[in-house]
């Protein structure tokens, strides 16, 4: 029985961070928990870094925001963003990171450096043993479309939570267009499998 669970989701505008947080929020509701979800719109979204907060509690959620060092899990769809938000993770929290690289313009036409997969892993290893790097975009592509990487990562997260697989699949079915349902189902299951195999 889940008492309380706080997930920080992060990615780049256009990666489906908000859809993933909507699914996660709905799953909490279906599981009978109080839920709050917080996100930012407007200028912050134009190709910039995006983060959302999803909080579950068996009794009542107060703050819609998770403080730094208080996330039970971080779910990040892009590896540089994973480094940006690592301070949200509590010690020995769960980290699921897509190895996908989306180089910002400060890297492509400027002098900023971009972290390697090894660097990302190294910094997370300092924070937690529960680190899982998933080639989400690749897995999603094998399921039919790289854009379903957000659902792949949710699948991976689901492997660590004590909730029935059907709950997740039912919620996803309610959140994605019918023609993409099978794709997202496959993406979810492959993500769940990828996490379990670790």
């Amino acid at each position, binding site marked *: 029985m889940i008492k309380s669970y706080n997930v920080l989701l992060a990615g780049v505008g256009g990666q489906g961070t908000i859809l993933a947080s909507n699914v996660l929020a709905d799953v909490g509701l279906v599981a009978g928990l109080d839920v709050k979800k917080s996100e*930012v719109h*407007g*200028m912050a979204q*134009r190709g910039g870094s995006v983060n959302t907060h999803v909080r579950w509690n068996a009794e009542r959620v107060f*703050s819609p925001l998770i*403080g730094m*060092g208080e996330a039970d899990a971080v779910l990040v769809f892009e590896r540089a963003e994973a480094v940006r938000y690592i301070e949200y993770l509590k010690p020995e929290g769960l980290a699921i990171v897509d190895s996908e690289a989306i*180089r910002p313009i*400060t890297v492509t*036409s400027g002098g900023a450096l971009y972290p390697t997969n090894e660097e990302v892993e190294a910094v997370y290893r300092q924070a937690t043993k529960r680190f899982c790097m998933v080639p989400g975009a690749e897995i999603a592509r094998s399921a039919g479309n790289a854009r379903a990487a957000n659902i792949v990562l949710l699948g991976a997260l689901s492997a660590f939570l004590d909730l029935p697989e059907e709950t997740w699949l039912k919620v996803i079915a309610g959140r994605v267009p019918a023609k993409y349902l099978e794709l997202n189902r496959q993406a979810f299951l492959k993500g769940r499998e990828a996490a379990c195999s670790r």
Partner: protein
Amino acid sequence: MKRLLSGNEAVARGAWEAGVKVAAAYPGTPSTEILENLARYPNVYAEWSPNEKVAVDVAVGAAYAGRRALATMKHVGVNVAADSVFYASMTGMEAGLVIVTADDPAMHSSQNEQDNRRYSKFARIPCLEPSDSQEAKEMVGVAFDISEQFDTPVFLRLTTRVCHSSTVVELTEDAETLIAQGKPPLDKFPRNPAKYIMIPGHARKRHPVIEERIRLLADFAETFAFNRVEWGDTSLGIVTCGVAYQYAKEVFPQASILRLGMTYPLPPRLIHEFAAAVGRLIVIEELDPFLEEEIKLMGVACEGKSIFPIYDEFDPRVVRESAVKAGLLPEAAHVPLLELDKPPVPPRPPVLCPGCPHRGVFQVLSKMRLPVAGDIGCYTLALLPPLSAVHTCGCMGASIGVAHGAAQAGIGERMVAVIGDSTFFHTGLPALVNVAYNRSNVITVILDNRTTGMTGHQQNPGTGHTLQMQETPPIELEPLVRALGFERVVTVDAYDVKAVDAALKEFVKADGPSVLIARRECALLPEARRRWRPLRVVTDACNGCTMCFRIGCPAILKSDELDAKTQRPKAQIDPLLCTGCEVCAQVCPWHAILFREQLEEVHHD
């Protein structure tokens, strides 16, 4: 029925359940989704007005006509609407008028962090502040009731974290029946000069009325259901409001809390009683020490901004760590941050999208090294390198006036103002009238992307559709500008770099004012998306000259391949990001980027 709704969705729902008939707004983060949602409910007229001042006038007119009315805006929108807000406070109305101000602590999408509770005291208008979506929904209805009971406009003050957080809301089941039972609307517009015509003689009689109204509202606040005490350990008493209440509950689960749902006017007796019953009294509120000052004016000692920050938004961590520093919590409550050896994280600022029609204009302006007064919209992003082509940005509609002032002051460079279509209709038009009438040689560029971009594609007077998708004649910019008396007006396709360049060069040579209308729909609009077609670099022709990198397009990448002679990385195009706008192909001196037409030729070969 329970649903997870954002604060904005909840306000829309609450307004509908309260029987609102007319709603007007100008889009602005974090308020935009209120009207977008309300527009879909039955029997509500909802519009995008050209600006917030007009929106408030529209709502006032509807309320004078005896229909419940709503105006919504971001915090700085109230600055634009302030004149109207103040007369509405003086006159009162025949039916409820609620004005939503959505403040933006942390400035996620704003130019300042002003605390609009100040407006409620300034204009003698009560202010309600919900702490989550359920309260947001309920408080809209309560705000309409208060508005009618006290004959006053009511502010509903939200903040970004209330607007854009989703929390569980109980929907009223038989809302439609309740709405139908509301009081019948007036048949005739009221004729009441002493109340509705604010000439000095009438206004002098109204001023005591509104002062008395605030006194009565303070009495009302003493027993207002959303002002409540949650008793706990009385050694610490916390006065709080809005989303800060949530952080207070989380960080101080044991403390006694006075939660104020009405933050102006305050209930003096309730506050005195609470203060007398607790040991240390603190105020937890984001931004200004508004409650703190009001409480101190009552002669009650309290602490607020000496403990908690006056800027940025709060979260549980900010509140907890501030409290530990002030000795309100034991040192053990401090949560240390992980000490990590982190690799550098590249900044990821928001950027002009691939295919953005503003890019070509700023490429030319950047090359011409002209001083550019900017405005509010996506195009502000051209301030960033490599374009670095915007030099001021203050508020909606400021660009043209600022450029005009600099020109009339005798600055030695030719001033340029850039402004988007929606912003032009908002407050740019009077400033352009001024340029025409007072004859400065300012070059005004209207970036007409056929939508309101930054806030997520809202209709505006140039698009041909209203918020509720009625067809309407779009206002054509060129005839409008010519009617102001401009002789040099050129409309170009914003993707046509050569045409933009030619027009601006001619304008710089000429004496007197001129207007360039750079027209091309936002690349993210559905009809534009259908035409996306990624371009390609002919690697052999590219010598890594960097011209295409300098337009700041996220779709153009440095490849791993170096040019043999220059030893510089060649360009490559990300086919998933490129829309095929051809701005890069036009600036490439080596013809190394294929135009759409050439792609087809290559394809056929």
